[in-house]
Protein backbone atom coordinates (compact mmCIF):
# COMPACT_ATOMS: atom_id res chain seq x y z
CA UNK A 1 0.00 0.00 0.00
CA UNK A 2 1.60 3.27 -1.02
CA UNK A 3 1.10 6.54 0.74
CA UNK A 4 -1.72 7.73 -1.51
CA UNK A 5 -3.72 4.51 -1.09
CA UNK A 6 -3.18 4.60 2.63
CA UNK A 7 -4.46 8.16 2.74
CA UNK A 8 -7.54 7.20 0.75
CA UNK A 9 -8.24 4.22 2.97
CA UNK A 10 -7.92 6.36 6.09
CA UNK A 11 -10.32 8.90 4.65
CA UNK A 12 -12.94 6.23 4.05
CA UNK A 13 -12.47 4.78 7.53
CA UNK A 14 -12.77 8.21 9.14
CA UNK A 15 -15.87 8.98 7.10
CA UNK A 16 -17.60 5.78 8.16
CA UNK A 17 -16.66 6.32 11.78
CA UNK A 18 -17.74 9.97 11.77
CA UNK A 19 -21.10 9.16 10.20
CA UNK A 20 -21.84 6.39 12.71
CA UNK A 21 -20.79 8.56 15.64
CA UNK A 22 -22.82 11.49 14.37
CA UNK A 23 -25.88 9.27 13.98
CA UNK A 24 -25.48 8.09 17.56
CA UNK A 25 -25.45 11.73 18.61
CA UNK A 26 -28.81 12.51 16.99
CA UNK A 27 -30.38 9.23 17.98
CA UNK A 28 -31.97 10.36 21.26
CA UNK A 29 -33.54 13.32 19.48
CA UNK A 30 -34.80 11.29 16.52
CA UNK A 31 -36.15 8.56 18.81
CA UNK A 32 -38.09 11.10 20.84
CA UNK A 33 -39.63 12.60 17.73
CA UNK A 34 -40.41 9.20 16.17
CA UNK A 35 -42.01 7.90 19.33
CA UNK A 36 -44.20 10.96 19.62
CA UNK A 37 -46.27 9.59 16.72
CA UNK A 38 -47.11 6.31 18.41
CA UNK A 39 -50.47 5.43 19.90
CA UNK A 40 -50.58 5.24 23.65
CA UNK A 41 -51.27 1.48 23.44
CA UNK A 42 -48.08 1.01 21.51
CA UNK A 43 -46.17 3.13 24.00
CA UNK A 44 -47.38 1.12 26.95
CA UNK A 45 -46.67 -2.12 25.12
CA UNK A 46 -43.09 -1.02 24.46
CA UNK A 47 -42.24 0.93 27.55
CA UNK A 48 -44.68 -0.55 30.04
CA UNK A 49 -41.89 -2.30 31.86
CA UNK A 50 -40.66 1.10 32.99
CA UNK A 51 -44.06 2.05 34.30
CA UNK A 52 -44.17 -1.15 36.28
CA UNK A 53 -41.61 0.14 38.73
CA UNK A 54 -43.49 3.32 39.14
CA UNK A 55 -47.18 2.50 39.25
CA UNK A 56 -47.97 -0.94 40.56
CA UNK A 57 -51.50 -1.27 39.22
CA UNK A 58 -50.72 -1.14 35.52
CA UNK A 59 -48.61 -4.23 35.11
CA UNK A 60 -51.20 -6.61 33.72
CA UNK A 61 -50.90 -6.13 29.97
CA UNK A 62 -47.31 -5.22 29.44
CA UNK A 63 -44.23 -7.07 28.32
CA UNK A 64 -41.24 -7.48 30.58
CA UNK A 65 -38.73 -5.87 28.30
CA UNK A 66 -38.47 -2.26 27.36
CA UNK A 67 -38.39 -2.14 23.59
CA UNK A 68 -36.83 0.86 22.00
CA UNK A 69 -38.60 1.40 18.69
CA UNK A 70 -37.74 3.67 15.84
CA UNK A 71 -40.77 3.41 13.62
CA UNK A 72 -44.31 3.51 14.96
CA UNK A 73 -46.69 0.69 13.83
CA UNK A 74 -49.31 3.28 13.16
CA UNK A 75 -48.60 6.96 12.83
CA UNK A 76 -51.03 9.05 14.82
CA UNK A 77 -51.24 12.55 16.24
CA UNK A 78 -53.13 11.31 19.32
CA UNK A 79 -50.33 12.25 21.70
CA UNK A 80 -50.25 15.76 20.27
CA UNK A 81 -54.01 16.08 20.50
CA UNK A 82 -53.83 15.06 24.13
CA UNK A 83 -51.00 17.42 24.89
CA UNK A 84 -52.27 20.42 23.02
CA UNK A 85 -56.02 20.13 23.41
CA UNK A 86 -56.93 17.98 26.37
CA UNK A 87 -54.29 18.79 28.93
CA UNK A 88 -53.97 22.52 29.51
CA UNK A 89 -51.33 21.75 32.13
CA UNK A 90 -48.61 21.21 29.55
CA UNK A 91 -49.44 24.35 27.63
CA UNK A 92 -49.41 26.28 30.87
CA UNK A 93 -45.94 24.97 31.70
CA UNK A 94 -44.82 25.75 28.17
CA UNK A 95 -46.05 29.29 28.69
CA UNK A 96 -44.14 29.44 31.97
CA UNK A 97 -40.97 28.56 30.08
CA UNK A 98 -41.60 31.34 27.60
CA UNK A 99 -42.48 33.86 30.31
CA UNK A 100 -39.14 33.20 31.98
CA UNK A 101 -36.81 32.65 29.05
CA UNK A 102 -37.90 35.40 26.64
CA UNK A 103 -37.61 38.38 29.04
CA UNK A 104 -34.26 37.10 30.32
CA UNK A 105 -32.88 36.69 26.81
CA UNK A 106 -34.19 40.02 25.48
CA UNK A 107 -33.14 42.17 28.44
CA UNK A 108 -29.86 40.38 29.02
CA UNK A 109 -28.96 41.08 25.39
CA UNK A 110 -30.05 44.74 25.46
CA UNK A 111 -28.05 45.28 28.60
CA UNK A 112 -25.12 43.37 27.15
CA UNK A 113 -25.02 45.60 24.05
CA UNK A 114 -24.88 48.72 26.20
CA UNK A 115 -22.41 47.29 28.71
CA UNK A 116 -20.10 45.76 26.12
CA UNK A 117 -19.98 49.08 24.31
CA UNK A 118 -18.99 50.72 27.58
CA UNK A 119 -16.29 48.13 28.14
CA UNK A 120 -14.90 48.32 24.62
CA UNK A 121 -14.57 52.13 24.49
CA UNK A 122 -11.94 54.04 26.51
CA UNK A 123 -10.62 51.15 28.56
CA UNK A 124 -9.43 52.12 32.04
CA UNK A 125 -8.34 50.46 35.23
CA UNK A 126 -11.77 50.69 36.82
CA UNK A 127 -13.43 48.94 33.89
CA UNK A 128 -10.86 46.18 33.70
CA UNK A 129 -11.38 45.42 37.38
CA UNK A 130 -15.16 45.17 36.79
CA UNK A 131 -14.63 43.02 33.73
CA UNK A 132 -12.39 40.67 35.68
CA UNK A 133 -15.07 40.44 38.37
CA UNK A 134 -17.59 39.49 35.67
CA UNK A 135 -15.33 36.68 34.46
CA UNK A 136 -15.03 35.30 38.00
CA UNK A 137 -18.79 35.57 38.41
CA UNK A 138 -19.36 33.79 35.10
CA UNK A 139 -17.22 30.89 36.24
CA UNK A 140 -19.24 30.41 39.43
CA UNK A 141 -21.67 27.49 39.25
CA UNK A 142 -25.29 27.70 40.41
CA UNK A 143 -24.30 26.03 43.64
CA UNK A 144 -22.57 29.31 44.48
CA UNK A 145 -24.74 32.00 42.84
CA UNK A 146 -28.13 30.62 43.86
CA UNK A 147 -27.44 31.35 47.51
CA UNK A 148 -27.00 35.13 47.02
CA UNK A 149 -29.90 35.10 44.54
CA UNK A 150 -32.08 33.46 47.14
CA UNK A 151 -31.14 36.00 49.81
CA UNK A 152 -31.94 38.95 47.52
CA UNK A 153 -35.23 37.42 46.41
CA UNK A 154 -36.18 36.93 50.03
CA UNK A 155 -35.19 40.50 50.93
CA UNK A 156 -37.18 42.01 48.04
CA UNK A 157 -40.12 39.70 48.67
CA UNK A 158 -40.02 38.27 45.17
CA UNK A 159 -39.33 34.70 46.19
CA UNK A 160 -41.81 32.35 44.46
CA UNK A 161 -42.45 34.87 41.70
CA UNK A 162 -40.98 34.93 38.20
CA UNK A 163 -38.91 37.99 39.13
CA UNK A 164 -36.76 35.87 41.41
CA UNK A 165 -35.44 34.11 38.31
CA UNK A 166 -35.76 36.85 35.70
CA UNK A 167 -33.87 39.64 37.50
CA UNK A 168 -30.66 37.74 38.28
CA UNK A 169 -30.97 36.23 34.78
CA UNK A 170 -30.95 39.67 33.15
CA UNK A 171 -27.79 40.69 35.00
CA UNK A 172 -25.96 37.44 34.38
CA UNK A 173 -22.61 38.48 32.86
CA UNK A 174 -22.26 35.69 30.29
CA UNK A 175 -23.38 37.70 27.26
CA UNK A 176 -21.46 40.82 28.36
CA UNK A 177 -18.30 38.77 28.42
CA UNK A 178 -18.77 37.35 24.92
CA UNK A 179 -20.03 40.52 23.29
CA UNK A 180 -17.27 42.68 24.79
CA UNK A 181 -14.71 40.43 23.19
CA UNK A 182 -16.38 40.87 19.82
CA UNK A 183 -16.76 44.64 20.15
CA UNK A 184 -13.12 45.08 21.11
CA UNK A 185 -12.17 43.68 17.72
CA UNK A 186 -13.90 46.49 15.84
CA UNK A 187 -11.09 48.54 14.28
CA UNK A 188 -10.70 51.92 15.95
CA UNK A 189 -10.42 53.53 12.48
CA UNK A 190 -14.16 52.90 11.91
CA UNK A 191 -14.99 54.81 15.05
CA UNK A 192 -12.60 57.64 14.21
CA UNK A 193 -14.04 58.00 10.73
CA UNK A 194 -17.55 58.21 12.16
CA UNK A 195 -16.42 60.82 14.67
CA UNK A 196 -14.90 62.95 11.92
CA UNK A 197 -18.31 62.87 10.30
CA UNK A 198 -19.72 64.23 13.54
CA UNK A 199 -21.30 61.08 14.95
CA UNK A 200 -22.15 61.13 18.65
CA UNK A 201 -21.22 58.26 20.97
CA UNK A 202 -24.78 56.99 20.87
CA UNK A 203 -24.71 57.03 17.09
CA UNK A 204 -21.43 55.13 17.06
CA UNK A 205 -23.11 52.48 19.18
CA UNK A 206 -26.24 52.20 17.04
CA UNK A 207 -24.73 52.82 13.60
CA UNK A 208 -21.36 51.08 13.87
CA UNK A 209 -21.09 48.66 16.76
CA UNK A 210 -24.57 47.17 16.58
CA UNK A 211 -24.67 46.47 12.83
CA UNK A 212 -21.13 45.09 12.87
CA UNK A 213 -21.97 42.78 15.76
CA UNK A 214 -25.33 41.64 14.45
CA UNK A 215 -24.17 38.07 13.91
CA UNK A 216 -22.56 37.90 17.33
CA UNK A 217 -25.66 39.36 19.01
CA UNK A 218 -27.92 36.77 17.36
CA UNK A 219 -25.63 33.90 18.21
CA UNK A 220 -25.11 34.93 21.83
CA UNK A 221 -28.88 35.41 22.21
CA UNK A 222 -29.33 31.83 20.99
CA UNK A 223 -26.86 30.51 23.54
CA UNK A 224 -28.56 32.47 26.32
CA UNK A 225 -32.00 31.29 25.22
CA UNK A 226 -31.10 27.61 25.14
CA UNK A 227 -29.40 27.83 28.51
CA UNK A 228 -32.50 29.26 30.19
CA UNK A 229 -34.91 27.09 28.17
CA UNK A 230 -33.09 24.20 29.82
CA UNK A 231 -33.27 25.62 33.35
CA UNK A 232 -33.85 23.32 36.29
CA UNK A 233 -31.81 24.60 39.23
CA UNK A 234 -33.30 28.09 39.59
CA UNK A 235 -37.03 27.16 39.65
CA UNK A 236 -36.41 24.37 42.15
CA UNK A 237 -34.72 26.75 44.56
CA UNK A 238 -36.47 30.05 43.89
CA UNK A 239 -40.04 28.91 43.15
CA UNK A 240 -41.75 26.58 45.54
CA UNK A 241 -45.04 26.67 43.64
CA UNK A 242 -44.90 23.83 41.10
CA UNK A 243 -47.65 25.43 39.00
CA UNK A 244 -45.22 28.14 38.02
CA UNK A 245 -42.42 25.79 37.06
CA UNK A 246 -41.26 25.78 33.44
CA UNK A 247 -41.76 22.70 31.31
CA UNK A 248 -38.07 21.80 31.65
CA UNK A 249 -38.69 20.97 35.30
CA UNK A 250 -42.22 19.65 34.88
CA UNK A 251 -41.14 17.10 32.26
CA UNK A 252 -39.38 15.05 34.91
CA UNK A 253 -42.74 14.51 36.57
CA UNK A 254 -44.59 13.56 33.39
CA UNK A 255 -41.96 11.06 32.50
CA UNK A 256 -42.86 8.97 35.49
CA UNK A 257 -46.60 9.39 35.14
CA UNK A 258 -48.06 10.00 31.72
CA UNK A 259 -45.60 8.07 29.62
CA UNK A 260 -47.99 8.00 26.66
CA UNK A 261 -47.68 11.75 26.31
CA UNK A 262 -44.12 12.34 27.31
CA UNK A 263 -42.60 11.94 23.86
CA UNK A 264 -44.99 14.44 22.32
CA UNK A 265 -44.43 16.94 25.13
CA UNK A 266 -40.68 16.50 24.76
CA UNK A 267 -40.94 17.08 21.03
CA UNK A 268 -43.07 20.18 21.46
CA UNK A 269 -40.56 21.51 23.93
CA UNK A 270 -37.65 21.15 21.54
CA UNK A 271 -39.42 22.87 18.63
CA UNK A 272 -38.31 26.46 19.45
CA UNK A 273 -34.67 25.55 19.96
CA UNK A 274 -34.53 23.18 17.00
CA UNK A 275 -36.02 25.88 14.75
CA UNK A 276 -33.43 28.33 16.02
CA UNK A 277 -30.73 25.81 15.30
CA UNK A 278 -31.94 25.13 11.77
CA UNK A 279 -32.28 28.79 10.89
CA UNK A 280 -29.32 30.13 12.80
CA UNK A 281 -26.71 27.40 12.68
CA UNK A 282 -24.17 29.59 10.94
CA UNK A 283 -24.67 32.31 13.53
CA UNK A 284 -24.36 29.75 16.28
CA UNK A 285 -21.09 28.41 14.87
CA UNK A 286 -19.81 31.97 14.68
CA UNK A 287 -20.90 32.64 18.26
CA UNK A 288 -19.19 29.53 19.58
CA UNK A 289 -16.03 30.51 17.77
CA UNK A 290 -16.09 33.95 19.41
CA UNK A 291 -16.42 32.39 22.81
CA UNK A 292 -13.08 30.60 22.45
CA UNK A 293 -10.19 31.91 24.53
CA UNK A 294 -10.67 33.64 27.86
CA UNK A 295 -8.07 36.26 27.09
CA UNK A 296 -8.69 36.83 23.39
Amino acid at each position, binding site marked *: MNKRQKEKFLNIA*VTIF*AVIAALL*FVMPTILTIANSFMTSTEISANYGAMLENMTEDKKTYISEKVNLKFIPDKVTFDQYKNVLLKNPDYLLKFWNSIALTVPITVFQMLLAILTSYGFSRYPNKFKSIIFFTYIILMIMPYQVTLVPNFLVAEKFNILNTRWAIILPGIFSPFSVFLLSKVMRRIPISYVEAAKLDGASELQILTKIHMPLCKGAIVSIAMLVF*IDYWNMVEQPLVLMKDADMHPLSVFLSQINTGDIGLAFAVGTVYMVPTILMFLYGEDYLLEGITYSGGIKG
Partner: protein
Amino acid sequence: MKKRKDQCGRKGERIFSNICVMPSLIGVLIFFLIPFGIVVYYSVINNPIMHDFVGIENYKRLIETVAFKKASVNTATFSLISVPLAVILSLWLAVLLERDIPGKSVVRTLFLSPLMVPTASVVLVWQVLFHTNGTLNQIIEMFGGNDIDWMKSAHGQTIIIVMFLWKNMGYNMILFMSALAAIPRDIIEVAKLEGASGWYQFIHIKLRYLSPTILFVLILSLINSFKIFREVYLLTGDYPYDKMYMLQHFMNNTFNSLDYQKLSAAAVLFSLIMIVIIAILLAIENHFGKDVE
Protein backbone atom coordinates in the same frame (compact mmCIF):
# COMPACT_ATOMS: atom_id res chain seq x y z
CA MET B 1 -10.30 77.16 21.35
CA LYS B 2 -10.99 74.28 19.05
CA LYS B 3 -8.62 72.09 20.96
CA ARG B 4 -10.37 72.79 24.22
CA LYS B 5 -13.73 71.89 22.78
CA ASP B 6 -12.28 68.65 21.54
CA GLN B 7 -11.05 67.74 24.99
CA CYS B 8 -14.43 68.60 26.43
CA GLY B 9 -16.04 66.30 23.92
CA ARG B 10 -13.65 63.50 24.78
CA LYS B 11 -14.39 63.90 28.42
CA GLY B 12 -18.10 63.62 27.68
CA GLU B 13 -17.46 60.52 25.61
CA ARG B 14 -15.45 58.94 28.37
CA ILE B 15 -18.25 59.64 30.79
CA PHE B 16 -20.77 58.20 28.35
CA SER B 17 -18.80 54.97 28.05
CA ASN B 18 -18.63 54.75 31.84
CA ILE B 19 -22.37 55.37 32.12
CA CYS B 20 -22.99 52.50 29.69
CA VAL B 21 -21.43 50.08 32.16
CA MET B 22 -23.42 51.38 35.13
CA PRO B 23 -26.83 49.67 34.75
CA SER B 24 -25.19 46.29 34.47
CA LEU B 25 -22.79 47.01 37.31
CA ILE B 26 -25.62 48.11 39.59
CA GLY B 27 -27.58 44.94 38.80
CA VAL B 28 -24.57 42.74 39.38
CA LEU B 29 -23.88 44.50 42.67
CA ILE B 30 -27.48 44.09 43.85
CA PHE B 31 -28.08 40.54 42.71
CA PHE B 32 -24.66 38.96 43.03
CA LEU B 33 -21.84 40.86 44.70
CA ILE B 34 -23.46 42.52 47.71
CA PRO B 35 -25.54 39.44 48.62
CA PHE B 36 -22.41 37.35 48.20
CA GLY B 37 -20.78 39.58 50.79
CA ILE B 38 -23.74 38.79 53.05
CA VAL B 39 -23.26 35.10 52.29
CA VAL B 40 -19.65 35.36 53.42
CA TYR B 41 -20.85 37.13 56.58
CA TYR B 42 -23.54 34.50 57.22
CA SER B 43 -20.94 31.79 56.92
CA VAL B 44 -19.06 33.06 59.98
CA ILE B 45 -21.95 33.90 62.36
CA ASN B 46 -24.11 31.56 64.40
CA ASN B 47 -27.53 32.70 63.15
CA PRO B 48 -29.16 35.71 61.45
CA ILE B 49 -30.80 36.82 64.71
CA MET B 50 -27.93 36.67 67.19
CA HIS B 51 -25.13 37.63 64.75
CA ASP B 52 -22.47 36.10 66.98
CA PHE B 53 -19.14 35.55 65.29
CA VAL B 54 -18.25 31.88 65.32
CA GLY B 55 -15.25 31.73 62.98
CA ILE B 56 -14.98 28.51 61.04
CA GLU B 57 -17.62 26.72 63.13
CA ASN B 58 -20.13 26.57 60.23
CA TYR B 59 -17.46 25.25 57.90
CA LYS B 60 -16.59 22.52 60.38
CA ARG B 61 -20.26 21.63 60.69
CA LEU B 62 -20.57 21.55 56.92
CA ILE B 63 -17.57 19.31 56.36
CA GLU B 64 -18.79 16.91 59.01
CA THR B 65 -22.19 16.56 57.30
CA VAL B 66 -22.42 13.10 55.73
CA ALA B 67 -24.60 14.29 52.84
CA PHE B 68 -22.12 17.06 52.01
CA LYS B 69 -19.24 14.61 51.95
CA LYS B 70 -21.12 12.27 49.69
CA ALA B 71 -22.22 15.07 47.37
CA SER B 72 -18.68 16.48 47.17
CA VAL B 73 -17.12 13.12 46.44
CA ASN B 74 -19.70 12.32 43.76
CA THR B 75 -19.43 15.74 42.14
CA ALA B 76 -15.62 15.69 42.23
CA THR B 77 -15.49 12.16 40.81
CA PHE B 78 -17.87 13.09 38.06
CA SER B 79 -15.96 16.25 37.10
CA LEU B 80 -12.56 14.56 37.29
CA ILE B 81 -13.66 11.87 34.83
CA SER B 82 -16.02 13.72 32.55
CA VAL B 83 -14.09 16.97 32.03
CA PRO B 84 -10.84 15.43 30.73
CA LEU B 85 -12.90 13.01 28.62
CA ALA B 86 -14.89 15.89 27.14
CA VAL B 87 -11.68 17.74 26.26
CA ILE B 88 -9.76 14.79 24.83
CA LEU B 89 -12.61 13.22 22.88
CA SER B 90 -13.76 16.47 21.31
CA LEU B 91 -10.19 17.40 20.36
CA TRP B 92 -9.79 13.98 18.82
CA LEU B 93 -13.01 14.41 16.85
CA ALA B 94 -11.92 17.85 15.67
CA VAL B 95 -8.59 16.45 14.46
CA LEU B 96 -10.40 13.60 12.67
CA LEU B 97 -12.70 16.08 10.95
CA GLU B 98 -9.70 18.06 9.70
CA ARG B 99 -9.57 15.49 6.93
CA ASP B 100 -11.33 16.27 3.75
CA ILE B 101 -14.26 13.92 4.13
CA PRO B 102 -17.58 14.13 2.31
CA GLY B 103 -20.54 15.53 4.24
CA LYS B 104 -18.29 17.16 6.82
CA SER B 105 -20.66 20.03 7.57
CA VAL B 106 -23.60 17.66 8.06
CA VAL B 107 -21.57 15.57 10.47
CA ARG B 108 -20.57 18.73 12.33
CA THR B 109 -24.22 19.81 12.55
CA LEU B 110 -25.25 16.42 13.93
CA PHE B 111 -22.54 16.54 16.58
CA LEU B 112 -23.64 20.01 17.62
CA SER B 113 -27.36 19.23 17.67
CA PRO B 114 -27.53 17.96 21.30
CA LEU B 115 -26.61 21.47 22.44
CA MET B 116 -29.89 22.75 21.05
CA VAL B 117 -32.08 19.93 22.35
CA PRO B 118 -33.43 20.53 25.87
CA THR B 119 -32.33 17.71 28.14
CA ALA B 120 -35.86 17.39 29.45
CA SER B 121 -37.12 16.52 25.95
CA VAL B 122 -34.98 13.45 25.50
CA VAL B 123 -34.61 12.22 29.04
CA LEU B 124 -37.14 9.45 28.44
CA VAL B 125 -34.95 7.93 25.75
CA TRP B 126 -32.06 7.82 28.18
CA GLN B 127 -34.28 6.14 30.73
CA VAL B 128 -35.27 3.52 28.18
CA LEU B 129 -31.64 2.94 27.21
CA PHE B 130 -30.41 2.48 30.77
CA HIS B 131 -33.41 0.72 32.31
CA THR B 132 -32.72 -2.67 33.94
CA ASN B 133 -34.77 -4.32 31.20
CA GLY B 134 -33.77 -1.64 28.74
CA THR B 135 -32.01 -1.50 25.42
CA LEU B 136 -28.43 -1.46 26.63
CA ASN B 137 -28.92 -4.48 28.87
CA GLN B 138 -30.63 -6.34 26.04
CA ILE B 139 -27.57 -5.71 23.88
CA ILE B 140 -25.32 -6.88 26.70
CA GLU B 141 -27.42 -10.04 27.07
CA MET B 142 -27.22 -10.66 23.34
CA PHE B 143 -23.46 -10.91 23.72
CA GLY B 144 -23.85 -13.17 26.71
CA GLY B 145 -23.16 -10.60 29.42
CA ASN B 146 -25.03 -10.01 32.64
CA ASP B 147 -27.60 -7.30 33.23
CA ILE B 148 -26.33 -4.16 34.87
CA ASP B 149 -28.50 -2.13 37.16
CA TRP B 150 -27.31 1.15 35.66
CA MET B 151 -29.32 3.62 37.65
CA LYS B 152 -29.00 2.14 41.09
CA SER B 153 -25.40 0.96 41.16
CA ALA B 154 -21.99 2.58 40.85
CA HIS B 155 -22.74 2.70 37.11
CA GLY B 156 -25.01 5.65 37.77
CA GLN B 157 -21.98 7.82 37.12
CA THR B 158 -21.49 6.16 33.73
CA ILE B 159 -24.96 7.25 32.62
CA ILE B 160 -24.42 10.87 33.51
CA ILE B 161 -20.94 10.91 31.98
CA VAL B 162 -22.44 9.65 28.71
CA MET B 163 -25.19 12.27 28.88
CA PHE B 164 -22.65 14.99 29.65
CA LEU B 165 -20.43 14.04 26.72
CA TRP B 166 -23.45 13.85 24.44
CA LYS B 167 -24.49 17.37 25.32
CA ASN B 168 -21.11 19.10 25.43
CA MET B 169 -18.80 17.46 22.92
CA GLY B 170 -20.25 19.25 19.89
CA TYR B 171 -19.60 22.71 21.31
CA ASN B 172 -16.07 21.80 22.35
CA MET B 173 -15.40 20.23 18.97
CA ILE B 174 -16.42 23.42 17.15
CA LEU B 175 -14.04 25.43 19.33
CA PHE B 176 -11.19 23.05 18.55
CA MET B 177 -12.02 23.00 14.85
CA SER B 178 -11.83 26.78 14.59
CA ALA B 179 -8.61 26.83 16.59
CA LEU B 180 -7.09 24.16 14.33
CA ALA B 181 -8.09 26.16 11.27
CA ALA B 182 -6.33 29.22 12.69
CA ILE B 183 -2.92 27.53 12.94
CA PRO B 184 -0.64 29.15 10.32
CA ARG B 185 -0.48 26.77 7.35
CA ASP B 186 3.14 27.56 6.48
CA ILE B 187 4.42 26.14 9.76
CA ILE B 188 2.66 22.85 9.08
CA GLU B 189 3.94 22.85 5.49
CA VAL B 190 7.54 23.37 6.63
CA ALA B 191 7.16 20.56 9.16
CA LYS B 192 5.83 18.27 6.43
CA LEU B 193 8.73 19.14 4.13
CA GLU B 194 11.14 18.40 6.94
CA GLY B 195 9.53 14.98 7.17
CA ALA B 196 7.71 15.38 10.49
CA SER B 197 5.15 12.66 11.09
CA GLY B 198 1.49 13.49 11.68
CA TRP B 199 1.87 12.63 15.33
CA TYR B 200 4.97 14.83 15.68
CA GLN B 201 3.16 17.71 14.00
CA PHE B 202 0.28 17.27 16.40
CA ILE B 203 2.32 17.13 19.61
CA HIS B 204 4.95 19.73 18.83
CA ILE B 205 3.11 22.23 16.68
CA LYS B 206 -0.65 21.98 16.85
CA LEU B 207 -0.91 21.29 20.56
CA ARG B 208 1.19 24.41 21.23
CA TYR B 209 -1.12 26.59 19.21
CA LEU B 210 -4.16 24.94 20.72
CA SER B 211 -3.13 25.46 24.33
CA PRO B 212 -5.29 28.60 24.93
CA THR B 213 -8.29 26.80 23.42
CA ILE B 214 -7.60 23.69 25.49
CA LEU B 215 -7.58 25.85 28.60
CA PHE B 216 -10.82 27.51 27.58
CA VAL B 217 -12.56 24.22 26.77
CA LEU B 218 -11.30 22.80 30.05
CA ILE B 219 -12.80 25.70 32.04
CA LEU B 220 -16.02 25.63 30.02
CA SER B 221 -16.43 21.88 30.51
CA LEU B 222 -15.70 22.27 34.21
CA ILE B 223 -18.44 24.91 34.53
CA ASN B 224 -20.82 22.72 32.56
CA SER B 225 -19.97 19.68 34.65
CA PHE B 226 -21.57 21.40 37.65
CA LYS B 227 -24.80 21.64 35.68
CA ILE B 228 -25.10 17.84 35.52
CA PHE B 229 -27.67 18.10 38.29
CA ARG B 230 -30.22 18.85 35.56
CA GLU B 231 -29.71 15.50 33.95
CA VAL B 232 -29.72 13.69 37.27
CA TYR B 233 -32.85 15.48 38.43
CA LEU B 234 -34.70 14.72 35.23
CA LEU B 235 -33.62 11.09 35.33
CA THR B 236 -34.28 10.36 38.96
CA GLY B 237 -36.15 13.25 40.58
CA ASP B 238 -35.45 14.61 44.03
CA TYR B 239 -34.04 11.42 45.47
CA PRO B 240 -31.33 9.95 43.27
CA TYR B 241 -29.40 6.81 44.07
CA ASP B 242 -26.23 7.09 46.04
CA LYS B 243 -23.70 7.67 43.29
CA MET B 244 -25.72 10.39 41.63
CA TYR B 245 -26.29 12.53 44.69
CA MET B 246 -24.65 15.80 43.59
CA LEU B 247 -23.75 19.06 45.31
CA GLN B 248 -26.85 20.75 43.91
CA HIS B 249 -29.00 18.07 45.58
CA PHE B 250 -27.31 18.89 48.85
CA MET B 251 -27.85 22.61 48.28
CA ASN B 252 -31.54 22.08 47.48
CA ASN B 253 -32.05 20.03 50.62
CA THR B 254 -30.25 22.64 52.69
CA PHE B 255 -32.40 25.38 51.12
CA ASN B 256 -35.45 23.39 52.16
CA SER B 257 -34.27 23.12 55.73
CA LEU B 258 -33.40 26.86 55.70
CA ASP B 259 -29.99 26.26 57.24
CA TYR B 260 -28.49 29.53 55.94
CA GLN B 261 -25.24 29.10 57.80
CA LYS B 262 -24.44 25.76 56.24
CA LEU B 263 -25.65 26.96 52.87
CA SER B 264 -23.45 30.05 53.02
CA ALA B 265 -20.44 28.07 54.14
CA ALA B 266 -20.96 25.66 51.24
CA ALA B 267 -21.25 28.49 48.70
CA VAL B 268 -18.14 30.28 49.99
CA LEU B 269 -16.13 27.07 50.12
CA PHE B 270 -17.18 26.12 46.61
CA SER B 271 -16.37 29.56 45.21
CA LEU B 272 -12.90 29.42 46.78
CA ILE B 273 -12.28 25.99 45.28
CA MET B 274 -13.36 27.28 41.85
CA ILE B 275 -11.02 30.28 42.08
CA VAL B 276 -8.10 28.07 43.07
CA ILE B 277 -8.76 25.63 40.22
CA ILE B 278 -9.03 28.41 37.64
CA ALA B 279 -5.89 30.12 38.96
CA ILE B 280 -3.96 26.86 38.68
CA LEU B 281 -5.23 26.29 35.13
CA LEU B 282 -4.29 29.84 34.10
CA ALA B 283 -0.83 29.43 35.62
CA ILE B 284 -0.30 26.18 33.73
CA GLU B 285 -1.41 27.77 30.49
CA ASN B 286 0.88 30.75 31.02
CA HIS B 287 3.75 28.37 31.54
CA PHE B 288 3.14 26.31 28.40
CA GLY B 289 1.56 28.76 26.02
CA LYS B 290 3.75 31.83 26.31
CA ASP B 291 6.20 31.07 23.51
CA VAL B 292 3.52 30.87 20.82
CA GLU B 293 1.65 34.11 21.27
